[in-house]
């Protein structure tokens, strides 16, 4: 250890081992991607495995180094002080410079990301090994491993990123890799559209993350974890979400009453939308079941162990933001609990083994969000770790079963249908035992990993309370005062503060929902075990020594029971596939002791605590000290009971009665059964509402563009110009005299104009002084007669002796303020044609209320 420590003098500032951890999978991906075909399967396999294995070893080394450094730091620490937040940082290069801050490509390992890193590279490595067996013989073998390595790289970037944009790079990177891997067998439209659905749903989540980043940058001015944490109080500014802009006055009051939300809640909700997209929570979980279209190792790695837990990691990482807003925490916990229950119900009736596991994942993720939602970040992350082990093991077990079924049934749906399986215990012992171990963990058999992690979450859900921060209280009180207009009385202030707390009934509700979900989990997991491994084999008639060549006439292996096809003895998977199963099963059973709450072994929580210090400050429990431990033991009972009820019921229905009661229940509750079988028809609901709306909006937009905008701007103008064109064409008859005639008409017109008298009147006014100058236009032989006061009598200023016609062109008129005078002038031209013109001079009152200039008073300070 010391030699390692000496190798890296000051890891806090420059820790190049991170470059190795990240570089290896990226290099593996590039080499496999570009030179894959030339390397051949062996070359690709060694490259991929060595890349992930190397990265695993490097992360193990980094983990141990970090552990050593933390021990060193906490040893020299005085008693009672908080454990320092040790962080190994590697700053690669300046990414981009924004106005207030600059975002660098910087990666850091602290306790949280170290654990996740171990899970990703560890489980990832095992799954790589497994895939070498599972994908053997696939034509684009190298492409699969390139994507898998790229995925590991993106996941590591997500975990190790030290600021939100770098996390976002990893975030969308894993989204891209899951798109590529789900749609790996892109020949079938089903797989490609499943990939597209996954990417777009993730993208909806990413919209939330992007918007959250904008808000965080606006309020705190920085995007790195430390920066945001340092300026967390800034999050208590407020934003008026409704009405947007200036609401028209005629709207009813309740519509225009401003809705103001503080930034902490807004950012929390936006971030949670991102997590819901990535970790398949209620509104955006629809992509995960369809993602089963990808190869099984992909489902194991991405949709069980690593990617889907990214959302939980983000909530844990940004705990200091979530904790500031009790409403956000309530939403996270509530959605988590509801998802756990909802997904469990769907899992009960599915026939496809991978669909059951998919809904089980969604349900388990609901548990994790329930954990972090009530402030138990450490237990949430612990469930992430244990879930990675047993769910990966379950998926890989299912994979080896499917692999066996492929020997005879090649149609993907049929080979995954549990009704074709049964009694595989005899033929695949290793898969069976590992699958049983993982199932024991997930259903919460006492002392297994799942038991400890799930019950810790349920216990925390019951006891944890979120304290609203002082700043939040002041803000709420200030708003209330502003709204009431008068200083609040004491009890009113107390009511406002009380309003901020999460209601009491909420934690018990979450606990109860959690327990019911645990029961359902136990039931459907054991259902899969009994349907696949117990009873007799329903796939095909087993003919020992059956050879493929002489029976290839009935290739359309339908699972119709009417004419049973015969096939070979289902074989156990090769070593490359069951070794990872055994390792994962071992961890699924014994990983629990790392954080066995009831036995006071809480090493894992202490290990994670430093990286969530500011988050945990806001979280308290209803009981303290030994009362708490007493309550913890007490709350073990509902957990164990849930396990017993669920597994007992499953045993009775599927083992004793061979599934008879399930069939009767299905007949009796036909409608409900079909509804639940169709996944509560959520996809159809989305299709009808959201997607349908966007499709029709797009169609109208396209038509609008083609006919209205293009129509008006382009076609209408052409029609107008063409019509004018044809109008003038009528005049061009070609006959010379016609043109001469037109010229004569023109001559007459000008003649008429010249002969009549004009003398337009122009007024130059000077409103301030009230002096108006009225001037008539000059002309050849023009004479004028003025009537300056509008009384009808021609009163020329300087009367010439004999005739009233003067040569005076300009007259000055003084108009008193606020009044108006009428001035008349008569003009006579050389042909004695006369014309009278009248003009009214109106002088406004000097109004004082000049409006200040248009435009906002933008608080712009002059930048030197």
């Amino acid at each position, binding site marked *: 250890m010391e030699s390692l420590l000496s190798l890296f003098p000051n890891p806090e500032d420059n820790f190049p081992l991170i470059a190795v951890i990240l570089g290896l999978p990226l290099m593996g991906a590039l080499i496999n991607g570009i030179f894959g075909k030339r390397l051949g399967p062996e070359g690709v396999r060694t490259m991929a495995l060595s890349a992930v294995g190397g990265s695993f070893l490097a992360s193990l080394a980094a983990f141990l180094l970090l552990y050593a450094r933390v021990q060193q730091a906490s040893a020299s620490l005085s008693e009672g002080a908080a454990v320092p937040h040790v962080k190994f940082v590697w700053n690669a290069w300046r990414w*981009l410079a924004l106005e207030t801050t600059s975002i660098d490509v910087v990666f850091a390992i602290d306790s949280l990301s170290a654990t996740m890193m171990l899970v990703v590279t560890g489980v990832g490595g095992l799954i790589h090994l497994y895939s070498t067996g599972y994908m053997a013989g696939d034509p684009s073998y190298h492409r699969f491993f390139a994507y898998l390595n790229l995925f590991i790289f993106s996941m590591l970037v997500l975990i190790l990123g030290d600021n939100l944009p770098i996390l976002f790079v990893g975030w969308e990177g894993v989204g891209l890799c899951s798109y590529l891997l789900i749609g790996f067998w892109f020949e079938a439209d089903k797989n490609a559209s499943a990939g597209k659905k996954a990417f777009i749903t993730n993208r909806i989540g990413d919209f939330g993350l992007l918007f959250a980043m904008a808000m965080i940058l606006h309020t705190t001015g920085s995007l790195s974890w430390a920066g945001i944490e340092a300026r967390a109080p800034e999050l208590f500014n407020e934003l*008026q979400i409704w009405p947007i802009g200036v609401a028209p006055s005629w709207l009813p009051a309740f519509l225009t009453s401003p809705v103001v939300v503080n930034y902490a809640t807004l950012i929390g909700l936006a971030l949670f939308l991102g997590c819901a997209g990535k970790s398949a929570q209620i509104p955006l979980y629809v992509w995960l079941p369809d993602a089963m279209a990808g190869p099984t190792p992909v489902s194991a790695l991405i949709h069980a162990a690593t990617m889907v837990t990214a959302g939980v990691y983000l909530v844990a990482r940004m705990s200091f933001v979530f904790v500031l807003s009790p409403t956000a925490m309530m939403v996270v916990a509530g959605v988590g609990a509801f998802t756990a229950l909802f997904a469990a119900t769907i899992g009960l009736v599915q026939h496809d083994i991978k669909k059951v596991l998919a809904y089980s994942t969604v349900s388990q993720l609901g548990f994790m969000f329930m954990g972090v939602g009530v402030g138990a970040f450490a237990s949430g992350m612990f469930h992430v770790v244990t879930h990675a082990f047993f769910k990966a093991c379950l998926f890989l077990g299912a994979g080896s079963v499917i692999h066996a079924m492929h020997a005879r049934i090649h149609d993907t749906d049929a080979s995954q249908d549990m009704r074709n399986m049964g009694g595989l215990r005899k033929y695949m012992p290793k898969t069976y035992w590992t699958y049983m171990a993982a199932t024991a963990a997930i259903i919460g058999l006492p002392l297994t990993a799942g038991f400890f992690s799930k019950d810790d979450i349920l216990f925390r859900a019951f006891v944890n309370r979120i304290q609203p921060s002082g700043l939040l209280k002041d803000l709420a009180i200030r708003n209330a005062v502003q709204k009431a207009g008068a200083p609040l009385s004491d009890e009113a202030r107390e009511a406002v503060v009380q309003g901020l707390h999460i209601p009491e009934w909420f934690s018990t509700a979450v606990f109860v929902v959690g327990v019911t979900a645990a029961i359902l989990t136990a039931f459907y997991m054991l259902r899969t075990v009994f349907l696949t491994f117990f009873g007799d084999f329903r796939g095909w008639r087993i003919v020992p020594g059956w050879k493929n060549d002489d029976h290839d006439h009935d290739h359309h292996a339908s699972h119709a029971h009417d004419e049973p096809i015969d096939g070979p003895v289902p074989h156990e998977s090769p070593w490359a596939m069951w070794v990872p199963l055994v390792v994962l099963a071992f961890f699924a059973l014994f990983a629990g002791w790392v954080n066995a709450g009831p036995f006071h072994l809480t090493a894992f929580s202490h290990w994670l605590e430093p990286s969530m210090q500011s988050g945990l400050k806001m979280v308290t429990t209803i009981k303290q000290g030994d009362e708490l431990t007493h309550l913890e033991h007490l709350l073990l009972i509902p957990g164990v009971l849930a396990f017993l009820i669920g597994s007992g019921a499953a045993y009775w229905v599927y083992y004793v009665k061979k599934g008879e009661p399930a069939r009767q229940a299905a007949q009796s509750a036909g409608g409900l059964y079909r509804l639940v079988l169709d996944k509560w028809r959520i996809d159809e609901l989305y299709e009808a509402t959201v997607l349908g709306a966007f499709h029709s909006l797009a169609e109208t937009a396209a038509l609008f563009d083609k006919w209205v905008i293009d129509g008006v701007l382009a076609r209408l103008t052409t029609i107008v110009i063409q019509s004018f064109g044809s109008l003038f064409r009528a005049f061009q008859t070609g006959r010379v005299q016609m043109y001469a005639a037109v010229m004569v008409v023109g001559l007459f017109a000008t003649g008429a104009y010249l002969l009549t008298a004009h003398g337009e009147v122009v007024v130059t006014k000077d409103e301030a002084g009230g002096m108006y100058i009225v001037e008539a236009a000059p002309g050849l032989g023009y004479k004028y007669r003025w009537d300056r006061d509008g009384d009808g009598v021609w009163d020329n200023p300087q009367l010439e002796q004999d005739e009233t016609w003067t040569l005076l062109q300009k007259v000055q008129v003084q108009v008193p303020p606020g009044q108006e005078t009428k001035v008349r002038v008569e003009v006579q031209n050389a042909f004695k044609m006369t014309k009278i013109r009248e003009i009214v001079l109106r002088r406004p009152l000097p109004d004082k209320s000049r409006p200040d200039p*248009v435009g906002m008073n933008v608080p712009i300070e002059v930048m030197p």
Partner: protein
Amino acid sequence: MNSALGSLIDLWPALVAGAFGAFVPKRPSWWERAGVGLIAALLAMFVMWMWPGAEQQQVAGEWPHLLNVLIGLPLIGSFFILFMPRQSPRVLRGLTLGILLVDLLASLWLLQVPMSTGWHFVYVHEWIPAFGIRYHVAVDGISLWLVLLTTFITPIAAYVTFGSIKTRIKDLCFSFLFLQAAMIGAFVALDLFLFYVFWELMLIPMYLMIGVWGSQDRIKAALKFFLYTMAGSVLMLAAMLYLVYTYSQLTGEVSFSLLALNKVLLPQQAQLLCFWAFAIAFFIKVPMFPVHTWLPDAHVQAPTGGSIILAAILLKMGTYAYLRFAMGLFPWAAGTQAANLAGVAVLGGIIYGALCSWKQDDFKRLVAYSSVAHLGYVMLGLFANTHTSTQGALLQMVNHGVSTGALFLLVGVIYDRRHTREISEFGGLAKVMPVYAAVFLVVTMASVGVPGTNGFVGEFMVIMGTYTSPYLGKFHWVDAAVAAFGVILAAVYMLSVVQKVFFGPLKNPKNAHLPDLNVREGIALVPLVIMIFVIGLFPSVFLSRSSQSVSDFHTRNRLVWNESQAANPEPRLLTNDILAGSLSGSSRDELMKRLEALDGQEPGRKPDDKGSKDETLAIQEESK
């Protein structure tokens, strides 16, 4: 008489070159010889005229004639091409690519000079002294990357087009070279008249390209393209003349220079009208929502090379000109109109563009609408008018050039093979053309804006800048939210087209034997894909060069904004000390120094004494 003889003697190099040119071609017909001779004489006179007679503001390392070379070389080249014999296309193509590559290498010199405050590579030459029109070209942080984008994209477009177009090579070469010259000219012109000339010159070659080598009803599309832009630029001309007239009223002397005209502070009503005249001209070019319908038609009918240049560079002319001229000359009007314009950019551009492109069944029309959506981001960045958003907009211009240029190139690839743009005609191409599918996927990711590629960086900075923009009033968060929402729609329409074209079973037998990317297309795509990742991973290389100019631009705009808050019934002249206004002491001097630099000290008309001549000659030698 002797003066005529004297000037004749001065022109001896031109005469010699003319005579030499006349003897070069072996063809018997005399008019061809005369033509080449004339061109040679012209070239010689151009070089003589450029010979550093006029004393230029000498800055170390900045050869004043670099911009003249960047513009002049392709211009003279295009005329030279006209006289080349039509029967040897290989020579024509070789010469064109040669000139474009030399232009690219020459433009790399722009990168050596750190873009500090003020203008670089300044070159001023009296053009029409009577109206104060000068050939005034210069580069600063804002226009630097757009010039480089032009010199980077045009050779690629030319190289690809030479692969697919085999008819009328001479006119094609002329169009490419002429277009390159006009575009670079427009980006570097600081004299409004000069800008207007280049702005119009650009239309002709583009009109030729769409009109001659387009597909079915290309004439209609070319005419529509031409008329749309022309209608806009006429408005601009009117406003420009009014501005110059007001300037001459205020200062007594006429000048078209941007650096002079942006001192005029018009009364609010006049400023709004002038702003809208300029803005509409540029919105048509961008294109913004109501006036964008020329773009899909132009793209659908244009040949591959024409589409690439139209999408990559010509659209940026609108956004760059809006930033430089509309916001530069009328900061107050731009500020007040920013809120509603941002609404149009977001709803009309980003959302509307994405929705329209989702439902298109013609591939190029889909990509055209997608560029309307991308440019919605750019315009949103400009309307937000903060440092981050403007930087983001500038970067997004370059990104859009690279990624949409690559997209059109790829669409051109399958168009050349199947001669159809209907998306329904294709399906399951990934199996038949794996390399093509891989490259298309990378470019799709760039255009959708997956982080790590260039698309994300631009959109990220625009959204961050929009949120913190004081100019958007109450709508800043709505604009940012809808812009972020646009990211989803981008994924929707791009992935749906990728799935229809590449994934799924191979339905159409005609697609069974399509050849994968050939060498020419590969060579053209490699630099674009490299740029996608370089900008995506190392954007600060690009942003650091433009940040100083952008911050100066904003400082000056803010000063003018403060100044124009007071009601001003009459147009006023804003000299620098009015702008500096209430400041005092060191910050005032520093601000004055920056404003002086922004005004670009006029190159003194000192008689060119011996000293400076040798020195410029010295620079001349080592730059060859």
